[in-house]
């Protein structure tokens, strides 16, 4: 009887010890989860168009997500008069990483979240150079597909991830650019000036429909006029344009 009671008491002590050991890490866990983690670059679930929070103000872009980093200022409007919009695809803490409409192609910078307003983008344009095909998707669903003309071998259309910077009514419905055109953040790697511009790559209509499906342009993407009308009237500034 004496031995059984001792065995029982030893069991009780062991159980209590186990309970105490189980509670201690849980309490410690609350404390360890409260410390702040260092920000890291995180891809956005949805691309965002970015513009200055104060209309008419320039957009200040930093080289790195730090207050002390060197900055570049972008005018409130483009050379064509469009509102300045950039494309954000990632963030680090309270900073957005944005694609820039400057050379070299693929340039990026950082803007403070508090300095800009953002809008979620649902559309994406993909230009398949080998297939001479343009595809417009909204929320991942194909809206439109069209054959296109792309750059000739000596003035190829540059590949990369870009975005729409301008939506233009060309005024001349029967000109070489067709009735409407879209400027992109891409620039020709061969031409640094063209027709008074700096070699900016556009997507536009044409007065030469027979060129569609061929590699004949100076780098721009030509589409049939009915297609550019749908694109320019349906896509917002900042829309991602993937060329490859």
């Amino acid at each position, binding site marked *: *009887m*004496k031995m059984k*009671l*001792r065995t029982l*008491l030893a069991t*009780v*002590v062991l159980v*209590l010890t186990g309970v105490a050991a189980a*509670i201690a890490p*849980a*309490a410690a*866990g*609350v404390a360890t*989860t409260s410390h702040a983690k260092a920000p890291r670059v*995180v891809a*956005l*679930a*949805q691309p*965002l168009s970015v513009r200055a929070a104060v209309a008419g103000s320039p957009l200040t872009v930093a080289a790195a997500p730090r207050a002390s980093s060197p900055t570049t200022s972008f005018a409130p409007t483009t*050379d*064509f008069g*469009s*509102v300045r919009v950039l494309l954000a695809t990632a963030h680090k*803490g*309270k900073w*957005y990483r944005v694609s820039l409409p400057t050379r070299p192609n693929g340039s990026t910078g950082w803007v403070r*979240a*508090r300095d800009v307003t*953002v*809008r*979620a983008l649902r559309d994406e344009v993909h230009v398949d150079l080998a297939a001479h095909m343009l595809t417009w998707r909204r929320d991942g669903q194909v809206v439109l597909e069209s054959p296109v003309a792309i*750059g000739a071998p000596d003035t190829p259309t540059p590949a990369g991830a870009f975005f729409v910077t*301008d*939506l*233009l*009514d*060309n*005024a*001349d419905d029967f000109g*070489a650019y067709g009735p409407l*055109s879209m*400027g992109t953040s891409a620039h*020709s790697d061969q*031409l640094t000036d*063209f*027709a*008074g*511009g700096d070699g*900016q*790559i*556009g997507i*536009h209509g044409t007065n030469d429909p027979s060129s569609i499906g061929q590699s004949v342009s*100076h*780098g*721009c993407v030509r589409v049939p006029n009915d297609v550019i009308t749908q694109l320019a*009237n349906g*896509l*917002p*500034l*900042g829309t991602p344009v993937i060329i490859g």
Partner: protein
Amino acid sequence: MRLSPRLTRTLAIAAFAVTGSIAVAPAVSAAVPGPGDLTPCTHDCHGGGGGGDHEGPGDFKNPEADPNPQPDPNPKPDDPTVDQPVDHPVVVAQPTFTG
């Protein structure tokens, strides 16, 4: 049956330990959040099986608790407003693209 003094003392200590644990347990349970409640919840708390004042699965939301939550005045960069009108100003201009 007559217990020895040594066994009586051991039994008394064990009884005191068990009684103390029962008294302390509720306080410990309230202070330690359960799974899903590691971040302190201030309003609109759903889910999680924590103790204390946190709502667990299946709990009814208190209608008096923050009935009209205000938007965060300083939203995080990864919480954009999705349902915004599209940004679509067409400008009349002569293009100078590479053509």
